[in-house]
């Protein structure tokens, strides 16, 4: 069964329709690449999934549970919204690390605040926090940052910051981890280290949605690819199919532009 089902999402800013009838599904453990020219609505789609924007219409289901159904809008309490959000993780183009916290603290902060709501928090505070820290250390190690755990964001390179941000998102065990152009803010020589950890996550069957302009990477790492154009899904399918034998003229034009640039 699909872990994520998105149906007929529609979103306008004022008079401009930014997302138009977006529907797709994603299987557990699979990776989805989202490609498309700038302004085609990729960021807005990720933001809708993460409840940073509210779609005007549409349904979002995770493991069968309806998180959002604009046809039957219920009053979202803040606590409920927060719980729904946690099904998703989001890695931003510009990292958005918290500058006053070390890499390790960036990874543990949200978890330690959430833990305060546990009924056994007072009793086992020390153990809970120690466990969160050990888990964060594991994640940083997985990101190749074990020896950078005590550094502050300004003491890290862009690639290292983005890997901290990935660890921070993973720490909350999201069902689906979203990436919005995770390497676009990086110097070319630093993109490789970030793409490598995302590739490792794909191999470990992390469910992911990745917006990227790294076409070779998108083709390689993804199980499905969606090409978005002007707020619509223009073409979707197996990456080899879409990249090598695009059915739509728009897809062909878009891909040709990328081939030329290189």
């Amino acid at each position, binding site marked *: 069964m699909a872990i994520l089902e998105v149906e007929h999402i529609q979103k306008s800013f004022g008079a401009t329709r930014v997302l138009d009838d977006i529907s797709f599904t994603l299987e557990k453990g699979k990776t989805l690449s989202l490609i498309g020219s700038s302004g085609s609505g990729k960021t807005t789609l990720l933001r809708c999934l*993460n*409840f*940073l924007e509210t779609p005007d219409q549409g349904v979002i289901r995770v493991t069968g549970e309806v998180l959002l159904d604009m046809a039957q809008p219920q009053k979202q309490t*803040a606590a409920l919204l*927060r*719980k729904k*959000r*946690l099904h*998703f*993780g*989001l890695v*931003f183009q*510009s990292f*958005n*690390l*918290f*500058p*006053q*916290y070390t890499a390790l603290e960036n990874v543990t*902060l*949200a978890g330690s*605040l*959430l833990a305060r709501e546990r009924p056994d928090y007072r009793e086992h505070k020390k153990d809970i926090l120690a466990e969160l820290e050990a888990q964060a250390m594991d994640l940083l190690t997985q990101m190749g940052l074990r020896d950078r755990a005590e550094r*502050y*964001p*300004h003491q890290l390179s862009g690639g290292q910051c983005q890997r901290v941000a990935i660890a*921070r*998102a993973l720490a*909350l065990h999201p069902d689906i981890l979203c990436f919005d152009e995770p390497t676009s803010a990086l110097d070319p020589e630093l993109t490789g280290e970030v793409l490598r950890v995302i590739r490792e996550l794909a191999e470990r069957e992390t469910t992911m949605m990745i917006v990227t302009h790294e076409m070779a990477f998108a083709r390689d790492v993804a199980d499905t690819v969606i090409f978005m154009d002007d707020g619509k899904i223009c073409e979707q399918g197996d990456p080899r199919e879409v990249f090598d034998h695009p059915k739509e003229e728009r897809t062909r034009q878009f891909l040709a532009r990328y081939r030329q640039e290189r």
Partner: protein
Amino acid sequence: MEQILQQMPIVIGALNTGFLQTLKLFFVTLLGALPLGLVIALGSMSRSLVISLFTRTIVWIVRGSPLMIQLLIIYYFPGLVLHTPIWGGGESGRFLAASVAFILNYACYFSEIYRGGIQGIPRGQDEAGLVLGMTPRQIFFHVKLLQMIKAIVPPISNEIMTLVKDTSLSRIIALQEIIWAGQSFLKGSQGISGAIWPLFFTAVYYLVWNGIMTIVLGRVEKRLNYFR
């Protein structure tokens, strides 16, 4: 020279007393204006147009006119024009009026600094917190507050250094601060008259106090230097 040395103990005593009043006004102003500034900042950012327009107009008036005039109006207007002296007589009345004028004036300046600090935090910090399941309250206290404090410490420090010197403006309503104390030896006081040097000498007090403030505020700034 010899005469100055003779006058010195008397003058220093009087200047110390005056400077105590200066310091009292300084601390009362900070104590009132630092929190009031935050209230005004929140008011000027309010979603209600009435509140934000009202607050911004007050800030504009207070920042756009001389503090000296504000002191005069606040001290004299209730008594001389409205015939309802609300400040009470004597030194305590003058101090009360001066405190109100200074707190209002500095709160308006602080509010603009706070506003810059609050609005200067990138939207991405909020969004990162939200996506990680933090509540707006947690985001404010655990993510944004320290970044805001770091951003406002240097401009607030500047205002604090200015405040030390601005307290001398309260001389205009005859508050018995250090300028008033220095000037008294010109007209004659405690057997000394026609002496101009005590007035000049008051500058030393301001310099020393601002020196101390520079060191203290510099330390605070340095403490926050561990992140960017």
